[in-house]
């Protein structure tokens, strides 16, 4: 790919830096505003202190159809506490100032459309944000966001799924900047005991379509699972498990889970991961 360096964008560059060390990157998710705006910032900083490579900050939404109960509850609590989009941008700003790593926002589409797509892109870039992960926006409907992201040099992370046809994977990866988010299971977010056997073939199909890094998320919750996924993926994405760790042990719990997952993604791979 001739322009692979621009497509790598912010998050892709950080992931490749980890890959160059012979390991997968660790991507950590927590929602903004949970349990409070300041408490959320502290929890996210704890992921940084524990050794995460890329951050995803969730924008709590009233109708999160891709989320299981853990993240749903967190979003409900954040919104009941009066969280506004400006607080999410404030969280991004504080975290980006604290950490020298890419800070993405993960959001359902309607809040962005309502805020104004261009306006959000400008404000996110100004806050030091790296881009968006959009679980309910497909590139087919994403022209306005794609244009705004390109203008503001933001990452556009779209999702691929085990059900995606090769044609759709081609279309989706061609629209991504940063990395490609591969959902490991057919289902919503939530920690799972069982590793998914759908993820590895999906990563292989995705890598056949793009030179971008591929991150795998949905269901990863501990160091062993992270190590399993790190054996074939460029990045391991963890979300619900961080919310649970925060519920159980506060920022210290988040930090210790991060350290454990960071160890998981550094375990020796039996074979190098193809780019």
């Amino acid at each position, binding site marked *: 790919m001739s322009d692979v360096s621009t497509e790598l964008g912010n998050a892709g560059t950080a992931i490749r830096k980890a890959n160059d060390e012979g390991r997968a990157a660790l991507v950590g998710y927590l929602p903004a505003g949970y349990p409070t705006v300041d408490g959320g910032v502290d929890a996210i900083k704890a992921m940084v202190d524990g050794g995460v490579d890329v951050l995803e900050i969730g924008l709590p939404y009233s109708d999160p*159809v891709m989320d299981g109960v853990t993240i749903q509850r967190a979003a409900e609590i954040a*919104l009941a506490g009066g969280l506004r989009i400006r607080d999410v941008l404030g969280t991004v700003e504080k975290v980006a100032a604290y950490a020298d790593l890419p800070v993405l926002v993960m959001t359902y589409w*309607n809040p*962005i*459309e*309502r805020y104004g797509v261009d306006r959000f892109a400008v404000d996110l870039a100004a806050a030091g944000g790296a881009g968006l992960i959009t679980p309910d926006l497909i590139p*087919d409907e994403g022209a306005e966001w794609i244009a705004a992201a390109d203008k503001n040099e933001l990452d556009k992370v779209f999702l691929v799924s085990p*059900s995606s046809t090769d044609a759709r994977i081609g279309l989706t990866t061609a629209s991504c900047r940063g990395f490609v988010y591969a959902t490991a299971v057919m289902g919503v977010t939530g920690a799972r005991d069982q590793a998914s056997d759908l993820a590895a073939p999906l990563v292989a199909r995705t890598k056949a379509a793009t030179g971008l890094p591929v991150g795998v998320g949905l269901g990863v919750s501990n160091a062993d699972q992270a190590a399993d996924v790190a054996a074939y993926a460029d990045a391991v994405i963890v979300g619900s498990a961080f919310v649970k760790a925060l519920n159980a042990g506060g920022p210290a719990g988040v930090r210790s889970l991060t350290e454990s997952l960071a160890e998981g993604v550094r375990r020796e791979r039996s074979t190098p991961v193809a780019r």
Partner: protein
Amino acid sequence: MTAVLPDQLGHFGRFGGRFLPEALIAPLDELTTAWQQAMADKTFTDEFERMLREYAGTPSLLYDATRLSDIVGARVLLKREDLNHTGAHKIRNVLGQALLTKRMGKTRVIAETGAGQHGVATATACAYLDLECVVYMGEVDTERQALNVARMKLLGAEVIPVKTGSRTLKDAINEALRDWVASVDNTHYLLGTAAGGHPFPAMVRDFVRGIGDEARAQSLELLGRLPDAAVACVGGGSNAIGLFAAFVPDTEVKLYGIEAGGDGYETGRHAATITAGQVGVLHGARSYLLQDEDGQTIESHSISAGLDYPGVGPEHAWLAETGRATYRPVTDAAAMESLRLLARTEGIIPAIESAHAIAGTLEIAKELGPEATILVCLSGRGDKDMDTAGEWFGLIDGTGKA
């Protein structure tokens, strides 16, 4: 089929489309193909028509409501969808989609329900066609529509009360979508209204459009001409689009959608989605919705569980924006007054949803004058609403005088 919309990706102008997780996109493509092939296959359409005729009892009557007309001050024709099997227009859509489920080789059906009419119709079709059935229903609605919960269970469906968010229809849809993402291999999501991601708005419209196709032919036979206006209540919009579809090309027929005005539009406690007029994305499509400044969905309020939804199907958004149809709210109080009016004048107890259409007709008749003939979709019967009506009119404790 005369409709040229939506386009290939499900757009009605700037509305519609697909705003859903990628995991559902390939399954929605498969559904689109299966539906289009089925509609082009005479064995499918013949079987669908046979079931509608022999099982659901359509075509439903077009009833010349002369006593009601005297009070309304214009001639009112009622399209009696309340007489269909299971008591509402919903059975049409359900039989179409359930038959399609069979054709696709899926064995499990999930559905959302508000009033419970769609849930009952789905449970009925699943019993009839031997499909496993799970219905998601907001906890609030399981309480105010308890009769329908019992009906669904008797028909063999599992009813799952949804306890998240506002615990009404919108949250039942969220929960059904979460189920579907994980189960789409063997499960069809039998969506109950003309909303959602493509192909649902167009597919549901085409399965329910018999309402208007029949009423158009029945009007021509009865009147020798078309009615001056067609009126229907709008929740997600299925009975309304089912009525309107046949008349959209007849520009001399005015189309009116009646939204749930709850406590009154000005109080903010309502479900008048189009009247409130903000464009956004909810449950898979771009349309009008009730939302705050940050794009968070605002909870709707209506005495009618079937209209208590902060979104609306995208084709209605398009009909509103192009001016082809007009949408206006009526309050809970006006709807309940009309429910009693229809009961007292015609001996017909309508669903509270349908009573909104009657209340809207009272206003529209004043504007159109005594020479006008107004076709109204009586989308369902009121048995399920007797608790609510009993409380409203004070009938339960025996002291009230309805």
